[in-house]
């Protein structure tokens, strides 16, 4: 159907104003209708706050347990507030000299979750110098090094687990750390074998192992296996949001937006998942709800007022694909790159550079990819697209 220019102009005005007008203003005050109106639903009780409200835990063992419980729940739910609660408990001893050793690992884990990687590494170094057998400390260090893109150091941390941790932990750590720099098929077979031989004691590790296995399967171009593995991880993960995020990304890459839309409800509490739902709507050619877009903008705007925003990668993805602002996406992706150098961080960085036509700004990152010998078909496609467009630049 041919649309008259006037009609088109009207449509444009409607769509533009929808972004600004009422529904977008989420913070308009209101009065509930009755005293019985439920205005907020709280999450599960992690630590009895009736006790903690009376004052900080004075017992170090209790403080450690409480902090670890908050960190674990924060990781499963994707809710960053719990990391803050953990940090609040742990910082009560910050002026104690020396700092209690029992709290140093939980402190490093909270700092890792909050992307305070340098502080976390300092604490881990001190802790491991005293407790070289601490499996969780080596794992945390390996994960930070891998996120920072320091693959040799990450591998070195994984190697420290040999003889200390189970085979599944060692193999998952190693293959997870090196999944972009080693032969994916070999790594996949090794990890799959380790999973098949896993014991009951490995149940805590299994969720993580399945996520790495799915990534390896995808790198190995076996997408259906990757998808099945993620569904398995999702089923056994309970309310863990990590498998769902990985599955959403995989479905988006496959163009299977319909499957994604059945998995994530419009009011999902996790911004990362709502973002992926909107991307799926866009991919499916459906109308993207403007109030949901405004909601995301509001969410990222609050994050950007922090000195260390936690979700810059997702903010960059939203800027590039939903807000149609590739320049802003590139700025955010470059800022994110200072903290995180995982595959998804590289991918959004190169995509933003390509779309915004600012390839020169990622020259150093491309050199880094070459230096680290990162091998991945998707990244290769992005790199080639850049080289084909601008041979003169590189």
């Amino acid at each position, binding site marked *: *159907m041919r*649309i008259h220019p*006037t*009609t*088109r102009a*009207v*449509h444009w*005005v*409607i769509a533009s*104003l*929808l972004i600004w*007008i*009422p*529904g977008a*203003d*989420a*913070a*308009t*005050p*209101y*009065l*509930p*209708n*009755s*005293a019985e*109106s*439920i*205005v*907020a*639903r*709280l*999450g599960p*009780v992690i630590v009895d*706050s*009736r006790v*903690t*409200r009376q004052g900080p835990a004075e017992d170090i063992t209790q403080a450690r347990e409480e902090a670890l419980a908050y960190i674990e729940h924060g990781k499963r739910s*994707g809710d*960053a*507030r719990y*990391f*803050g*609660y953990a*940090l*609040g408990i742990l*910082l009560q001893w910050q002026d104690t000299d020396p700092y209690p050793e029992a709290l140093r690992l939980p402190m490093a884990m909270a700092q890792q979750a909050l992307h305070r990687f340098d502080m976390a590494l300092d604490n881990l170094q001190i802790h491991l110098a005293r407790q070289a057998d601490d499996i969780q400390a080596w794992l945390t260090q390996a994960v930070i090094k891998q996120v920072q893109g320091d693959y040799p150091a990450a591998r070195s941390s994984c190697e420290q687990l040999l003889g200390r941790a189970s085979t599944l932990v060692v193999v998952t750590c190693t293959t997870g750390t090196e999944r972009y720099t080693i032969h994916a098929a070999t790594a996949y077979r090794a990890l799959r074998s380790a999973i098949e031989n896993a014991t009951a004691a490995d149940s805590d590790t299994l969720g993580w192992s399945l996520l790495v296995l799915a990534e390896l399967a995808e790198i190995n171009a076996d997408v259906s296996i990757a998808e099945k593995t993620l569904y398995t991880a999702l089923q056994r993960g309970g309310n863990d949001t990590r498998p769902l995020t990985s599955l959403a990304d995989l479905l988006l890459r496959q163009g299977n937006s319909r499957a994604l839309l059945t998995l994530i409800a419009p009011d999902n*509490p*996790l*911004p990362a998942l709502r973002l992926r739902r909107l991307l799926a709507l866009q991919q499916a050619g459906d*109308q993207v*709800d*403007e109030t949901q877009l405004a*909601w*995301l903008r509001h*969410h990222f705007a*609050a994050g950007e*007022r*922090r*000195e260390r925003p936690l*979700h810059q990668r997702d903010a960059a993805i939203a800027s590039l694909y939903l807000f149609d602002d590739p320049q802003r996406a590139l700025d955010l992706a470059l800022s994110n790159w200072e903290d995180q150098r995982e595959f998804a961080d590289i991918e959004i960085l190169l995509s933003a550079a390509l779309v915004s036509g600012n390839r020169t700004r990622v020259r150093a990152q491309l050199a880094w990819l070459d230096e680290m010998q990162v091998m991945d078909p998707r990244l290769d496609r992005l790199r080639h697209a850049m080289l084909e467009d601008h041979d003169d630049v590189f």
Partner: protein
Amino acid sequence: MFFKTRLEVLTAIVLWTFCLLPTATFAHKPSDSYLTLDTTGPTAWMRWDIALRDLEYAVGIDQNGDRSISWGEVQQRYPLIVAFAQRKIGLSASGSVCTTTPREHQLADHTDGTYAAMIFDVHCAAGMVDELRYDLLFERDPTHRGLLNLRLPEGEQLHTLSPEQREIAFDTSAPVSPMTSFVKRIAEGMKHILSGPDHVLFLITLLLATVPVRSTRVPHPVPQIKSLMKELLLITGAFTLAHGLTLPITLFDLMTLPGRWVESAIALSILLAAVNNLYPFLPGRSWAIAFTLGLFHGLGFASDLAGLTLSTETALLALAGFNLGIEFGQLALAMVLVPPLYLYRNTHLYRILALRGVSAVIAIIALVWLFERGFDTRLTTL
């Protein structure tokens, strides 16, 4: 291309109508509070939004331990919440401590859930407040941040308060020009009208009826844009006038009406206007209906005008600006709504879906609101 068919345009309008309604959304992000300190009026005031879940963590609101917070529980703990908030903020003027008095408390939805939205008047014996100290939640959650929107005579500043930066000093000595205040209030008037679902639904109902002429009982298309524009200006002007007449009653405490009565009357006005679109029964032209029913809307809560508590020349000028903003806001809404209606005025789709369908939906919403507000109960989550 946003919409491919007429149906999509009209569907979008209907959907958009629903988007205006407040929704309870909860998401995950680090803890923030949203603080606005306004020093541009004759007296300073501040609005402070603190997440209910943060207040539960710090003060405790969930009295029955069912992991749900009811409005009754918030109200019950309100004195404790206010005392907690007042302990965590320090305001001063030229080194002398200022005091804060709570004036209003409501709720507000941010992306990570429901917040207690409190308005405080700030009283400083030594002049205008020029320093702020913030200490909310840092002890329990060092990742908490106070997102401060500082409104100064020379403009707005954004600051982020953290354990490392708990204090902000600022210059409020620049005099407030009445014209600056006037212009700012225009923007606030627009925001006031466009952010109130009640006002917007009422106006949509009236605007739907502008395309068919209301002088006869059977609607038929308007032949001239000129007469349509005249009708629009009459309706929006009548509503602004009515709203502007009753607003000062609330603002200057000239008469106190129970909130439930006012809210019910507003719901009734929407219901009457919507039913009138389906079965015309109200006497008079659209502008007369807009004026009569619009009188109730000015009696609603007007937190946007907080700070205009003194009847000074500046306050009156600001009030004029606010009303002008209300007029502009309505015209903006009309600009969005009326052109597509005008384009499709000769279609059955318009008469059935836009005029009758949307009016019927609005009538149902208004009826639900009327019932809920009248009987102080809850039927839906709308």
